[in-house]
Each structure stands twice: as structure tokens, then as C-alpha cells.
């Protein structure tokens, strides 16, 4: 009887004590949440339309396949980041003042700090970039500020379209025109050729934001991560003059169909540089 009485007192005390916590928060959990993230891809460029690159070549893509590996999203700022801010906001005004007072130190390749992992999509696949938007496998993540991402190539390619890549991680075909010169080309990259400075087939420090190209978003619940691909970036620095008829003696010979494989040429080196550019892979989150 006495112990029962004490039990009742104990429960009351425990409840009172719990209710008397000095914490003002009504949170009922630990910090952060694990969230589900759907993943989809979009292609920024209309590949059926010709686009002129920095060197004056008008390029039309007829085939483009890309081997995609795991995708990761991080808290760290992206390489050469530009935070997306509303110019009418106080945040923007404060950023301007603070940047004037203390000049920001921009990250640059080799000093990218990924920070905590905030999300991932782990299932490799192969994309046909002319096929439009594609839903990839579901991923997961945790809530919190997310600012950058890492794109990886999968080698050997996986997925239904993997045979189209013929073992490469990138394969494109198209036509480049400049003046009177027209070149039917094929450009491809193997896994070792896209390695970064750490000898990994990945592009680290890509922008991750509310829209493609923006940086900085608070992932506060289940949502969708969109990977926006820009194949035009791959060709920005490609000078097809190096593979045009009458170029250097080492220029490749077109095949029976008149298609030039630019592999090993200076044009190809420009292509590889473009493929490894972070601006070709932009990530965004929507709830």
C-alpha cells in the first residue's frame, strides 16, 4: 500500500519534472531528420537545335549518352560559388556590406571542402540525353543546409542503355559547322580520362540550390533533387579546326560515313575539359 502510494507520487513527480524543463523548445526529436529524395535529370540545352560554342562552331548533337554513378549532396560551399539571393532582401544587403568590409575568400579547385553529407542517390544508370527528363532511383538524405554536390561517372556503365556507350562513360555524336566547314564527329571519354586531381571519376563542388546554377538550399523535408545537365558546356572549348580536312598531318581520317572520331586530338582535349566542368552538372532541390 505504501509502495503504491509512492509509485503514484513518483509518476506525478516525473511528469512534473518533465514539464518543468527549462527548455523553451517543443521539439520532440533529435536534431535533423532523415528524408527521402527522389532524383530526376533534365537537359538544359535543346540538343536538336544548333548551338554556337566559344570558338564559333555551331554544334548540333544527334546522340548523347552519359554513364551516371552515385550522386552526393553536401553542406560545403561549391567551387566558385555564387549564392542565390533576392536582391531586394536584407540578406542580400547584408552580404554586400559584409563582403565590402571583409572580402570573401572563394574556394577553388583543390580546396573544396565537402562538409557533411546531406543526401545521395546510389544507383548507377545510363542516360540518353536526347530522351528528355528521366527519373532516377530514389535517394535519401538528411535535413539541413545543402550547398554543393558531387557528380560521378560509373564505369563500366550500367543500366538498359549501357550498351550504347560501348564501355565509355560519355559518348556523343553530332555535327559541327563553321563557315563552309562541316564536320560530322564522334566524341567520347573513358573513365580514366575524366579523373579529377584525386584520381577519381567525379566532379566535386557542383552547385546545389533552389534552381539549377544557384547555390544554397535548406532541405527541410522529403523532396526531389534534379540534376540538370548541360552538354553544351562539354563543347565550349572544342575547336573542330584541329580535325577539319587539311588540318595537321595527324588529323584523324573520317570513316566510311564521313564521321571523324576526335579522340586524341586537341579538339578532344577541349571536349574532355568541358566534360569535367562543374557547370555542366547543376543540382536543385524542390520539396
Amino acid at each position, binding site marked *: 500500500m*505504501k*509502495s503504491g502510494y*509512492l*509509485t503514484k*507520487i*513518483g*509518476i506525478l*513527480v*516525473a*511528469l*512534473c*519534472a*518533465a514539464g*518543468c*524543463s*527549462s*527548455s*523553451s*523548445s*517543443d*521539439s*520532440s*526529436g*533529435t*536534431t*535533423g*531528420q*532523415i528524408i527521402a529524395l527522389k532524383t530526376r535529370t533534365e537537359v538544359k540545352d535543346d540538343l536538336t537545335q544548333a548551338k554556337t560554342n566559344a570558338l564559333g562552331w555551331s554544334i548540333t548533337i544527334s546522340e548523347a549518352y552519359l554513364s551516371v*554513378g*552515385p550522386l*552526393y549532396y*553536401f*553542406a560545403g560551399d561549391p567551387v566558385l560559388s555564387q549564392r542565390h539571393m533576392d536582391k531586394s532582401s536584407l540578406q542580400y544587403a547584408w552580404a554586400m556590406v559584409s563582403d565590402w568590409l571583409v572580402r570573401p575568400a572563394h574556394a577553388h579547385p*583543390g*580546396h*573544396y*571542402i*565537402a*562538409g*557533411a*553529407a*546531406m*543526401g*545521395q542517390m*546510389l*544507383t*548507377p544508370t545510363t542516360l540518353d540525353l536526347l530522351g528528355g527528363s528521366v527519373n532516377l532511383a530514389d535517394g*535519401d*538524405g*538528411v*535535413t539541413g543546409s545543402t550547398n554543393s554536390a558531387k557528380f560521378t561517372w560509373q564505369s563500366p556503365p550500367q543500366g538498359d542503355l549501357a550498351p550504347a556507350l560501348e564501355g565509355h562513360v560519355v559518348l556523343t555524336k553530332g555535327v559541327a559547322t563553321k563557315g563552309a566547314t562541316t564536320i560530322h564527329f564522334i566524341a567520347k571519354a573513358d573513365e580514366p580520362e575524366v579523373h579529377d*586531381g*584525386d584520381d*577519381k571519376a567525379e566532379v*566535386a563542388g557542383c552547385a546545389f540550390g533552389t534552381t539549377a546554377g544557384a547555390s544554397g538550399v535548406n532541405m527541410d523535408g522529403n523532396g526531389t533533387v534534379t540534376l540538370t545537365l548541360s552538354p553544351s558546356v562539354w563543347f565550349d572549348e572544342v575547336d573542330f579546326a584541329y580535325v577539319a580536312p587539311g588540318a595537321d598531318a595527324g588529323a584523324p581520317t573520317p570513316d566510311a560515313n564521313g564521321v571523324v572520331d576526335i579522340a586524341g586530338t586537341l579538339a578532344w582535349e577541349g571536349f574532355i575539359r568541358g566534360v569535367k566542368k562543374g557547370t555542366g552538372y547543376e543540382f536543385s532541390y524542390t520539396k
Partner: protein
Amino acid sequence: MLPCRALTIAALLKRAWCSRIPLVAIVTLWPLAANGHELDKPVPLEEPPPTWPSGVRAEHDVVVPVILTISSEGLVTEVEVEVSLGADFDEAAIAAAKRWTFTPARNEGVPVSAKVRAVVRFRGESKGPLDSDAPVAPHEREQGNAKSAATTKRTDTTSSPVEPVTPLGHGEDEHQEVRVIGERTTPPRSASETTRGQDVIQAAPHRTGGDLLQVVPGVFITQHSGQGKAYQVFYRGFDAVHGQDLEFWVGGAPVNEVSNIHGQGYADLHFVMPEVVSRITVLPGNYSPEQGDFAVAGTIRYDLGYREPGITAKGTTGSFGERRIFLAYHRENAAPGSFAAFEAQSTDGFGPSRAASRTSAIAQQVFPLGDGQLRVLATGYAGKFDSPGVVSLRDLESGRISRFGTYGVDQGGFSSRYQLVTEYRGVGENSDWAITPYFAQRGLELKQNYTGYLLDPTNGDTTQLINESTTLGLTGHFRRAIHWLSEHDSIEAGVSARNDWINQSQRNIGSNQKVLDTIVDAKIRAMDAAGWLDLAVVPLSWVKVRAGLRVDGLAYNVQDNTPATESRSGSDPNAFARTLRPPSPGGQARTAMGTHFGPRMTIDGTVVRGTHVMLSYGEGFRSPQARSLGNGEKTPFTTVRSMEAGLRYTTATLNASVSAFRTTLNNDLVFDAATTRNEPVPASERVGGALEFVIKPVPWFVSSGSGTYTRATFTQSDSQYQAGDKLPYVPQLIIRQDLAFTPTIAHYLSRPFTGRFGASLTGMFDRPQPYGQQGHDVFLVDLVAELRLKELAVGLDVFNLLDAHWYDSEFTYSANWNPGAAARLVPERYVTVGAPRTVLGTLSLFVD
């Protein structure tokens, strides 16, 4: 003036016989608040006679010597059997003594607590021996009653209780003076301060000394990395991990290891056999000046003793290849504190990578010396264990890995401890003192891998931790009466000092055990010297106030031999990798010092007899990891503030308390799987309530129960944690119930046929995980059953009777256990699987 505090059993018996009452000899040993004035001894008021265990009287009397703790209200709060006559007589004697009441000891008229020596007399049918002065020979006792190991006769009806004595049951040629020095029974510092005696400790089955922590109200323990690694302890909203938030003492020596490489305060209790722990004392919070480093959530003390007279030999075998031998020796009539014990144990484990073995020896002897007594304790222990490590909850639930499966990474460890403790206790006219020097040598080697191949996809992330330490220290106190606010006040001064020499390293190793990388390689010298003053005053007859101040000075010298490195960056997949290997200057020597002041206070108000309202406040600290200190840095302590309000109820058959508490920390530590250590996190607080009780209405039944609810939250934010959120891993509700029935079933072959049937229920609920995840609740039932015919006993221990599928530990973090697949960087759930139903059988032989 108290004439003398050194007594003999024979003197007690002489006086006992004169009084012709069940309680026959009472002598004050040492009043708790003695101040040098005339002291009135406790006088018995009511002494219900004991009940013969068998229900049938022997022809002669049987006397059980006991030491009683009598509160200032005249209640018997604790009974210690001084000379065991067997479990049945012991329990009957304890039950009887707990029903007695007294006028309390008085110091100049003011009631004070006191310890007295007494005997419980089971009166026999025959009075014949009363006329003889000659002791009864042991063989005669045996003829009269198999349990009558202590038949006695009057020897001198007028003798003083301070005369030389004859130990019970021995002839004149075996006369031996037994000197008893009062043991300090410091009044509780908080309402929820409590003890658990052997009746509760032995109610349910326990396999190790660390396992006994389960009987502590509010404690839940797990063992996530093999049977040999220190238990992970959860207590009152703290994930104390292996001891960072709980101060452990065993036999007068500290167990926590300063700056252990695996975790601050690492406390491995495997060196203690459960059979030799006589009492567990729990001091929640930090309200006593005696509590020092690591007493963040509280202090737990083990007292050692073994009562079974003669030689005990036990052999145990059972599930999963469990084998154990236990040997003990306790000389008949010697104090329970004098014994020697040995154990050797091994198991194949309940699944792959779970084999373990250990061996341990403990010897303790209490000697009379001068005006006091000397206690010497020596222990030796070594244990080796494999560890299955963690597995992904996703893999378990999907069936990709079996219930007891592992990822096949070589993990485990080796642990050893050797120590020597000496203690001298003395008593003066109005003072008492003690000094306890100790020496301990510890070794710990761990191989563990929590993250698989996350950080090193080729070689894996297995790390080897080695920590070797040598500890030399002492504690001491001196207490005496003073006149300050009243004539009944006292003051105590105490000192504590320990010096730790530590060699530690952490290295990454490959699958072929080759060392790949050195993360930590350091030699540390850590010193903690403390002093305290503790004042007890009685401003009103029903109010006692105790206030004290403890000052700790800590100094560290770190020789960092870690090879010079640069911080990993650039390609690190996440923040874990950076914390795994911070930049190291290489070969740098650093020193740091700091001082902590910790005030402590308790107000104890007597509401009605046996019922106290208590308010407690204290400030404590946790020392830092030495290798984390910068050169010349003022030692940054974790400062702890504790407060508690509660009600404490004490009668002969029921001890209970109910309390509410709050503890705040200015910074905290939370386990980080990537570094396999606890890493700093923001300030936090715990708020909760606790209820606990021990009830023993009859000699053959005891019940101990507790329920503790705590809400542990952050009070500040950082980049990882937000104020107001719960601390991860810390269970909020812990319940525990221990029950034991110890009847005498019959008599057979002139021997008592006794039983011991016990059970424990353990519940742990609401275990939050990082990122809003919720851990699994745990509910376990253990059983013990033993039948004994004096010299022979057969027992059965059943752990996890319901074969609950439970998770011992749960974590949420990033890992990659498939080196060929894409690394998972986002945190997910990892668990260690708890033990299934385990049955052990024990055959025991007792030789007087």
C-alpha cells in the same frame, strides 16, 4: 564519554546473556555526529524475537552477530551479518533486527545516527548450556543442529562490553581479539541516494561485476563490442558510455581511467566477480564533497565481501559453450571483508566473433591495527574478447545478414587490471579518520571498425586503440566535532590525489594487421589533487544542513609523438574524416593546468519519523581529454550543476524515495562513430524524476524496484545540434524490478533444504537516435533458481527468458560495409544485436 570503541564478540555475548532478551548486546561503536561530549548509546525499545528458519527450535540457542546502523530516529536502517551462520539464519536475523526500534544514540541530548554491534538470539528449547562457562565445541554444535555454528553460553554476567572476547564457536585456545572500528555511514546527501545489498544483488542472475549495475535505479547497460569491453552505461539521461559521466569506486579505489584513448573515464568492472560484491552504494548527482572527477551523473561504489564460510567451489556450464569456475574462501568467524576469490570463464559466444574469456583473482583481508583497522585488497584480472561489431539495421531487416551475422572484420580486445589498495581507519575521542593509498595498472587494447570501408575503401577503417596506464593515488579524511551554530555540528576535511602515467595510441590497420597510419601516439601524465571541507550543522532540531566545498587542481603534461600531418581536405567525403585525423604538430610537448571549485549542499528536513524531505545542490566537473589540450591552456572543464528535491522514506521493511532532479552541463560529449570516440557537443540539461524502493516484509522475500524518467536536451546550438532537441542515444524511461524468494523448503539428512528463486525485469524505452530516428525499446526477463542442501547446491540461470529479439546498442551514422559498391555517406541505422535466451547451470560445493 564514550568509554571505548573497540569491542569483542564475547563481551557482547556476555552482556547479551545477562539481558535475556533476543537482542542481547548493544554497544555504540561510533556515533556519526560525535562531538566529544557524553554520548548516550541506543537503547532497545521493541525487539520482536527472530523466527527459527526451519520453523523448529534446536535444543540450544543460536546467536547471529550483527552490526546495526541505527538512524537518529531509532530505526534500524541497515543490518550487516558479522559472522554468517548460513543464508537461512542470516536472513532470519536480518529480518528480525530490521524490526527492532531504539531510542537513538544521543550526543548531549541530540539524536544522532550510530552503528552498534548486537546479536540476534534464536532461543533454543534447552537451557542446559547456560550453566557452563566452557564454550561449546564445534562438533557439539553440529550434533545439536546443523546450522548452530554459534551456540553460546553465559561466561560473565557482569562483564564490561569492552573486555577481551572469545570468537564464537571456538575454544579457549583459539581466543582471538576482534576489534571493531565504526564504519562511517555518512547520512544520505540526496533523497535518491541508495544502497543495494546482497539480497537484492543476488536476486537475479548476473555474470560479471559490471552486470550488477543493472540493480542500480535508473541504470541501463549494454555491451556493444564483446564480452570484455567495459559496459556502456545509461543513467538519468546520460549516455555515460564507458564511464565518462559516472564515477566508479571498487573496494576504495577509483576505476575510471583518465584520458583513456577509447573514452574519457573508461571504467571496466570485469575484474570484480558478482559473488564478492557485498553492497552497491549509489550517489546520484554530485552533492557530496567526496565526489570528484567523472561524478557528472553520480557516483557508484562497490563494497567487497564474501560471507559464505569455508570454501566455495562452483562450476558453471551452459549455452554457447559457457564455462566458468569460481572458487572462494572465507574463514569462519572472520569479518565478511576478509576473503579470497578466483574465477575463470570462457564462452564461444552466441554468434560469430563473440568468443570471450577472462580470469580474475581478488583477495582482501581486514586486520586490527592500533586504534583502528587496516584493510588490504589486491586484485588481478585479464580478459580477451572478440567483437562482432555493428551491422546495418537495413541489412538485418532485409535478411541480407542473419540475426547474429557480422561483416567479418576482425575486431575485439584485451583488457587487464592489477591493483593494490590499503586502507587504514581510525577512531579518536571525538574524531575519525581514514587514509587509503592505492595503486593500479591497467591495459586496454581494442580493434574496432564502425565505418567499414567509408574512409579507406581499399584497406578498411579498422583502428587499433592501445591504452596503458599506471595510477598511484590516495584518499583520506579527518572529521571532528565543532561548536558553531549548535553544539552538535561537525566538520570534515578530506584530500584526494591521483597521478596517472598513460601511454596511448590509435592507428589505422589493414586487414593483414599492418599499421597503415598513426592517428594518436602520446604519453600523458595527468594529476588531480583535491581537497575539501564539509560542514554539518543542526540549526533546528528537525533540520540538518550539510555544506561543503571541493577544490580540484588538475595538471597535464602531454608528449605528442604523433607524426606530423596536415589536415585531410579536398576529397574528404564528409566532416567525419577531418575529425578523424586533425592536424598534428608531431613531437610536441604540451602542458596545461586548471582548478575547479565545487560547492555542495544538502538540507534534510524530518517531516515525520522515517520521512525526510531533502533538497540538494552541487557543482561538479568532468576533466578533459588530455591530448585535446593546447600548450598553456587553462584546463577547460565540463562544469556540472545538479539539483534534486525529494522525499525519502525509511522503515524496517521498506526503504523508498521519490525525487525530481535537474542537471546542466556547459558542454557535453556525444559518441561519434567515425572517430570511435565521444566528441564535443553544445551545452545540455537533464530533467526528470525517479522512484525507487526496496521492500523486505519477511525474511524470505525481497523486492527492489525503480523507475526513472529523464528528458535530456541541448540548451545551446552548434552546426550539428540545435537547442531544445533531444540528446541522441539517451533512453528516457528505464525501469527495473528484482524479486527474490529464499525459503527453507524442508530438512533432509539433518540439513536445511533451501531454495533461491529470483527474477528481474528490465525495461528501456524511448531511445532517440540522431536525425529524428527512434531506437527500439527493450524489455528483458531473467530468472534464477537454486536448490541447496547445505554443502551442495544446484542452480539454473536464465537470461532473456522470453528470447526477445533486441538491440543492445543502436547508432545512426555513415558507413560503408560493401567496398565494391557505392559508398553510403548519408547516416543510417546500425545496431549490435542483444544476446538471445541463455541458460546456465551451476553446481556448487560448500565446505565449512
